[in-house]
């Protein structure tokens, strides 16, 4: 994957908080706390649980993919035709918690080989680099 291809696929955000991983974890996984900072939801920290986030502009459908208390949380994020995965990684630091959020799009069918054609998203986004440069 080229750099441009990668940039087209992921959003990465990192923050440092003064609070402990235990507290940050609660804010990321308790329904009423999630509603406070993200959106109304029916989240449960159980792998395989399907939940919905209610945005003003529509709904986001999510499936819990991984739960490792106070360390790692991952769920799919499907909305408006975008298939993506959101992961949260918590690291305990001397003065609190380091939180990293990564949202990666277009992962769902990257292994899909369609009649030998070169149409996987990953390959497509790589080739898009050519298209984008061309367009400029």
């Amino acid at each position, binding site marked *: 994957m080229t750099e441009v291809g990668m940039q087209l696929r992921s959003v990465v955000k990192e*923050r440092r908080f003064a609070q402990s991983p235990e507290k940050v974890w609660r804010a990321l996984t308790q329904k009423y706390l999630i509603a406070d900072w993200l959106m109304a939801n029916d989240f449960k920290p159980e792998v395989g649980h399907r939940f919905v986030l209610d945005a003003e*502009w529509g709904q986001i459908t999510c499936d819990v993919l991984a739960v490792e208390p106070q360390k790692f949380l991952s769920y799919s994020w499907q909305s408006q035709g975008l298939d993506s995965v959101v992961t949260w990684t918590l690291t305990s630091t001397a003065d609190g918690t380091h939180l990293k959020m990564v949202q990666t799009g277009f992962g769902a069918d990257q292994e899909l080989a369609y009649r030998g054609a070169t149409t996987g998203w990953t390959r497509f986004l790589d080739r*898009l680099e050519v298209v984008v440069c061309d367009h400029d």
Partner: protein
Amino acid sequence: MVQLHDDVFRSLGDPTRRGLFEFLCLDGEQTVTALTERIGISQPAVSKHLGVLKQAGLVTGRQEGRHTHYTARKEALAPLIDWTQRMGGFWDSKLDDLENLLGRMDQ
């Protein structure tokens, strides 16, 4: 808020349409017949996929005699290219709210 461009994402969510669009981007204008030979599915299926791409503004068709020639509209890819930027702004604002909540949890 994050309003992604549904049509572009949905149209390109299908691997066959992505393939058709890719061929048109890389090799320029082509007829349905040429695309059908290339992608190896029936002509009606190809026409149907091209219709979806056209509706999303990703391709345009030009009639010439009995044939329609399709061209990719590369500028229609903008929402796809912008999505990380838009979601980035969304998460910045949500993480501000999270920080605010954590502060209140301390009290």
